[in-house]
Structures are given as structure tokens and as C-alpha cells.
């Protein structure tokens, strides 16, 4: 379109007093700009006035710390740290260790303190990241790998690592110690105390001095139980046991409670005598000296109820204190009768105490019943060793020393894994028997790393969809860990 202006002359076309014609767009822009600035200042100053600083929080706090999320100063006691970080100052964190330790007792250097060359991380914030919307316990693998990538460098020169070095991720994690061949004395140090290595089979074996047959107890057809068992139902005297009948997790759902004779074994394997000695109930379990003392006491009480038993007893006069065994009327003196009774008790006690280890003497149930198959007696389960220097008994029960935790360096929640069957994870070796087929106590029915890898697939916190977590801290704990502490965990002295 051509320009055909009707008023070409500028002087006629425009008003030279341009101030009369302000730009209304610019004017409204200015007003709106001032309003926006005012709105922004109001938005920013409102939290400052009210003291609720949550709007300034970049990302949500972890659940426990939300108690004081309105007061940033509760934790953030150092200011200007981001500028120092930008300048390359290492360890510039806005929260000091003192702020953390106002509530928490853990310290940076309580992880194998005698071993680390540099004493561990510089501050709590090196590992624990807050404002991530997740628990501060979920430490990134990089924090662990900083040392565990090369423990030889991280450890002091006079210390030897107890675990494999150069672990940088779950994918590079070595096979669990109990499932891999014995490699070195250093890394097998703790396991040597719990198990013994079978060089021929290239496999660790449980050295617990106890006999237990998983296959018999987990027979799918059931095992016989005595009539006074809580689960006995008339003629139906077979009970099918499940793993969790004996292996029950702790209250926190993590490790398993220790197996206790009174709770798990005694309902079937009672330490009872047959015949009349069974009247006073089973013998106590756990202390052989106590059990034998109780046995002597029962023999004496039995004799009080059945004095005629003494009449058939031949008297060894050499042990009698007095010279006259008979009264002038030809009757036994009280001393003689007491000595005869004492000798009867001692003789029976000698017989029984030597036979306590035998399944034929102690058993549960009545003769003739099918549940007579239930054997008992110390030697049926325990390792009984002859020991001549222990007075008149002549034998000793080896302490079982059943480890409370086989993998004390790891944290594992049985509760979180309750959707899988026990036998899916617990078996001996790669091709060894599973928990239900194991007949030998020495079978180490521990899961291997391959079992974990079925679900815990990828590495790092950014697990691919469908994979269970695979961070170091999902299985391992940093604080309060020393070799002595781990040994305590394994022995069950602490939890």
C-alpha cells in the first residue's frame, strides 16, 4: 500500500507540544512494575515478620527434623557458607557438627576409629544431606566409596582392613564372606571365629557344637508331638513345623531372636525321666551342674516317698561312721539306715548322671506311644566330651556358641523381606542343600549375593524402576562400628 498521507507536513500533522501526549502503555507498565515490586517485597517479608521461615526452605526436611522446620537457625548456625563453597573451601557447610550433636550422639570418627588414617569425614554434612525430602540416613554411596574404594590407603599403615578393599558399588560388591572361598586371614578374621573352612569342599561350615536336622524338623508330613504339647489334637499327633516356628525376628523386624531351648525345643524335647522320677517335671536346661543337683534332690525325695527301695540295697560298712550297725534288739541303727539311704541315692545318681547324656534315659512321653520317637538327653543334641577332671560326672557338654548374627557387618530386615519364602534365600552354597533339605548342622544356610541380586539389581540411589534399593547404607551402618562392636553383635552380647 502506498503512503498517501493527507497531511504530509509534520507541523500540521502533529502537535509539537509532545508532553500533552504521554505513552499510556509505558505509563501502565511503570505502575504495574511498582505494584509487582511491592507484591514481591510483601511476599518475601511475610515469613520474616511471622518468624516462620519455611517459605525459604529450598526442599522439604526429613520427617524427624520437621519438628523445628520453622526455625532455620536451630541448625543453620554458620552463615555465608555457600560463598565459601563457591570459592572452593572444602567442608564449608552451614550446619556445624555441634548443631547435630545437640541431639545426636553419633560422631564422625566412630567408624573403626583406630584404623582410619584421617579419622573419617570432616563433618556430619559430608555424608548426611538434609533438604532432600528423604531421611538423612540415606547417605550416598560416594561417601562410603571415598574410603572403601581403597581401604589400604584409607587405613593407617599399621592396620589391616577386615573387609575387602576396592568396593565401589553394589555391582562390584564381593560375595558375602560366608559364601566365598577363604581368601585371606585378614578378611576372614571374624568368620574364623564363627565358622571353620572346609578346604576339601571349599566351603565355610558352621562350627556350632549342636546337632540339628532341618530336614527332619521341616518334614512336610509333620513330626510327632507329645500329648501334652499345646498343639496336640487327639489322635492327630503330627505337627508340621514352619521356619518361623523357631526363627522369629526381633521386635525391630531385623535380626532373628536367638533360639531358646525352653521356647523352641522343650515343648517336644522335655528333659524328663521315665517312671517315677518324672513326677516332679523336667530337669532344668542350660547348666549341667544345676541339672545334676536337681536330680540328686529328686532321688532323695523319691526315697522319702519309697523307703522300701533302700531295703534291697547292700550296705558298704566301710563308709559307716559308727562301729555298731545294729541295735541290741537286732534292728538297724538310724545312722545305718541313713547311710544306706545315702548310698542308694549316690549309686542311682552316679548311674543317672552318667546316663543323662543318653537318649535312652531321658525322653518325652509315655512308653509305647508313638511319640517315644522324640529323643532327648544332653548327648542327643549337644556335643558331650569326656572330661576326667570334673569329679564324679566324667563328661562335659561343649558350649554350643551359636552366633546371634552370621553377618554382623550388615543390616538386614527380615520384616521387609517377608514376602519371600525363607528357603528362597537360605541354602548352603550355590548347589548345596536348602534349608528344608539340610541334615547337617554344619551346613551354612546363608543367602549369597546372587540371591540379593535377583531384586537389588542396579547400583546407586537412582535405582532403575523395579529395582530394590542398592545403596551401601541400605545394608551397612557407619556409626558405632568397630571390630570389637561387630564381634559383640556376632556373639549376641549386644543388639
Amino acid at each position, binding site marked *: *500500500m*502506498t*503512503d*498517501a*498521507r*493527507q*497531511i504530509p507536513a509534520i507541523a*500540521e*500533522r*502533529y*502537535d509539537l507540544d*509532545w508532553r500533552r*501526549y*504521554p*505513552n499510556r*502503555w509505558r505509563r*501502565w*507498565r511503570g505502575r*504495574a*512494575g*511498582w*505494584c*509487582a*515490586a511491592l*507484591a*514481591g*517485597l510483601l*511476599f*518475601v517479608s511475610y515469613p520474616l515478620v511471622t518468624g516462620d521461615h*519455611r*517459605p*525459604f*526452605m*529450598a*526442599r*522439604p526436611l526429613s520427617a524427624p527434623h520437621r519438628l523445628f522446620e520453622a526455625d*532455620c537457625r536451630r541448625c*543453620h548456625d554458620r*552463615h*555465608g557458607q*555457600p*560463598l565459601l*563453597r*563457591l570459592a*572452593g573451601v572444602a567442608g564449608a557447610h*552451614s550446619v556445624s557438627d555441634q548443631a547435630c550433636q545437640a541431639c545426636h550422639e553419633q560422631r564422625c570418627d566412630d567408624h573403626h576409629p583406630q584404623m582410619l588414617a584421617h579419622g573419617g569425614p570432616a563433618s556430619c554434612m559430608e555424608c548426611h*544431606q538434609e533438604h*532432600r525430602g528423604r531421611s538423612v540416613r540415606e547417605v*550416598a*554411596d*560416594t561417601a562410603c566409596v571415598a574410603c572403601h574404594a581403597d581401604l589400604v590407603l584409607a587405613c593407617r599403615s599399621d592396620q589391616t582392613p577386615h573387609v575387602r578393599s576396592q568396593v565401589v558399588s553394589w555391582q562390584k560388591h564381593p560375595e558375602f564372606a560366608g559364601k566365598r572361598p577363604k581368601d585371606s586371614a585378614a578378611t576372614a578374621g571374624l568368620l574364623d571365629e564363627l565358622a571353620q573352612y572346609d578346604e576339601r569342599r571349599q566351603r565355610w561350615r558352621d562350627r556350632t557344637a549342636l546337632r540339628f536336622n532341618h530336614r527332619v524338623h521341616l518334614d512336610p508330613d509333620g513330626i510327632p508331638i507329645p500329648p501334652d504339647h499345646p498343639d496336640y489334637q487327639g489322635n492327630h499327633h503330627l505337627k508340621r513345623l514352619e521356619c518361623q516356628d523357631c526363627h522369629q525376628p526381633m521386635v525391630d523386624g531385623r535380626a532373628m531372636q536367638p533360639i531358646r531351648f525352653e521356647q523352641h525345643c522343650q515343648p517336644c524335647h522335655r528333659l524328663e525321666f521315665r517312671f517315677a522320677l518324672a513326677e516332679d517335671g523336667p530337669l532344668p536346661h542350660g547348666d549341667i551342674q544345676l541339672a545334676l543337683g536337681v536330680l540328686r534332690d529328686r532321688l532323695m525325695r523319691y526315697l522319702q516317698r519309697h523307703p522300701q527301695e533302700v531295703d534291697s540295697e547292700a550296705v558298704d560298712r566301710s563308709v559307716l561312721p559308727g562301729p555298731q550297725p545294729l541295735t541290741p534288739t537286732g534292728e538297724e541303727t538310724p545312722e545305718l539306715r541313713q547311710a544306706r539311704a545315702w548310698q542308694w541315692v549316690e549309686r542311682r545318681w552316679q548311674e543317672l548322671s552318667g546316663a543323662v547324656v543318653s537318649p535312652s534315659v531321658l525322653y518325652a512321653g509315655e512308653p509305647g506311644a508313638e511319640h517315644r520317637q522324640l529323643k532327648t538327653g544332653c548327648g542327643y543334641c549337644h556335643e558331650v566330651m569326656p572330661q576326667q577332671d570334673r569329679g564324679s560326672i566324667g563328661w562335659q557338654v561343649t558350649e554350643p556358641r551359636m552366633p546371634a548374627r552370621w553377618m554382623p557387618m550388615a543390616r538386614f530386615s527380615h520384616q521387609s523381606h517377608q514376602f519371600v519364602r525363607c528357603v528362597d534365600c537360605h541354602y548352603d552354597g550355590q548347589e548345596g542343600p536348602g534349608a528344608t533339605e539340610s541334615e547337617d548342622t554344619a551346613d551354612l544356610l546363608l543367602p549369597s549375593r546372587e540371591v540379593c541380586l535377583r531384586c537389588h539389581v542396579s547400583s*546407586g*540411589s*537412582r535405582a532403575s524402576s523395579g529395582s530394590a534399593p542398592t545403596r551401601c547404607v541400605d545394608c551397612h551402618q557407619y556409626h558405632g562400628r568397630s571390630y570389637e562392636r561387630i564381634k559383640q553383635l556376632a556373639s549376641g552380647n549386644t543388639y
Partner: protein
Amino acid sequence: MLVDRSHFGWGLATLVALGIASVIYGVAAYRSPDGVLGGSPVGLTFGLLGSALMLYAGAFSWKKRLPRWTWLGSARTWMAGHIWLGLLSGPLILFHCGFRWGGMLEQATLAVFFVVYISGIVGLALQQFLPRVLSNVVPAQAIYEQIPAACEALCKKADALVAARCGTLAVPEWHEPKDAASYQPERALVEFYLHEVRGRLRWSDRGAGHYGQLRLKLLEVKHAMPDDLQPVVDQLLDIVSERQQLQWQSTIHGWLHGWLLLHVPVSVLLLVLAAAHAVASVWY
């Protein structure tokens, strides 16, 4: 046209800077288990750079108010920087926050930033293409602020044109002509001009569409006028046409600058929120 071949260097530099920033971000995100965090050295660097570019973009409006400060660079250079560095600030801010929304203040800041960013892109598109449309549709452009004065001048010219030919511009009383002999075309033209044309020549915010109808009416009037009056009607047609162009110019100018009513105030709000975010981040 804002972006032309002279911007090739700016565009290339922006793409190179974006590529370098992307590589740095990718490496940092790969190395960090939680990705790049705003408080990490890399995240802080991105935040500082993004904020600097935002400040530079905001300083453009202040530079326009200081035309004599030529040592700061030409307005054209500043406009190019405003466009390209403003565009670059978006990815840098996203790298700073690690593509996360953050807390309430950060969410508000990011939301405002995106409003500024998108309104800027829309404004750039409008400024890129609408001036060409304007020059095609409105060859008789006027200084925008002086459009009312130009309209007034057109009105005065039309008044003079009609008065010169018809003798007076006094508003006559309307009488239906009784016969053809009593019909006075000058009187009819004055009456039509005063009732239909003159009011529309003056400045108002009405739309430009009804000027087309007015021109059709003027054509009808022209055919009803004797030959000696038809040139007057033709000139009136030209004046109405120019008035219509001025109306188009006003409308297109509204499109060209209306987006700034959103872009500028929200930019101010962004600077306030970003400053608050920076202070809170450094303090805590």
C-alpha cells in the same frame, strides 16, 4: 525486525555457551548421586551466571533511559544481548536448580521466571513479525503518541474541505425534501459529514472495522452526489482511509507493546524474588 543476520554471532555464541554449560552440567550430574544441587559449587556457579544474565536483561530497560551513555554500548547491542543472553539464562537457571522446583520461594521464583521467559519469547516473535505487517497495512504511520493529534488534524482538514465546498459546517435541521427541486446536495453532504463522518475522524479507542462500512456509505453518497461534489467525497474517502490506517496502527501497536505490560512487571517481581532467594541461600 529484531533478529536479523547481524545476530548470527550472538546466536552462535549463545549456542556454544549453552553447549559448554550442558556438558558441565551433564558431567556434574553424572558424578553426583543426587544430581546437581543449587548449593553445590557447580550449581552455585550456574546460579550466579543465570542471575547475572537476568540482571543484564533487566538493565536493558534502564539503559534505554540513558541514551546519552553511549560508552555503555549501542541500544542495538543491548537489545541483542537482552534477547540472546536472556534466552541463555533459562537453561542456566534450570541447571542451577537441577530441574527441581525447590521450596515455596524457589517455586514462586521459577514460576515467575518462566512467565518472564515465555512472555519474552512471545514478545520477540511479535516484534519480529508485526513491524513488517504494520508497514504493509499502515503506510501512513504516525508517531504513536501523536495519533490523537494526527486524527484531530485529519478532522480539521475534512472540516475545511466540506466547509469550503458547502459553505458552512453548521448543523442544519433535517427536513425531508418534498420534491426533487427542493433537494440540496451540499446540505445533504454537510449533514452526512456531520452525522456519520466527523465523529469518527476524531480519536477514540474504537475498532478499525467500522471504517470499512463508513467508506461503503461514502461511496453510496458519492453516487448520489452531482458530479461537482464527487471530488469532495473522494477526498473524504481518502481521509477516512488514513484514519482507518491510524486505527490499525494503534491496534497493532497494542499488540507490539501490550505483552510488555506482563513482561516488565513480572521481570521486576522476578528480580525481587531472585534477590530474596540469593540472600536466603547465602545466609542459611
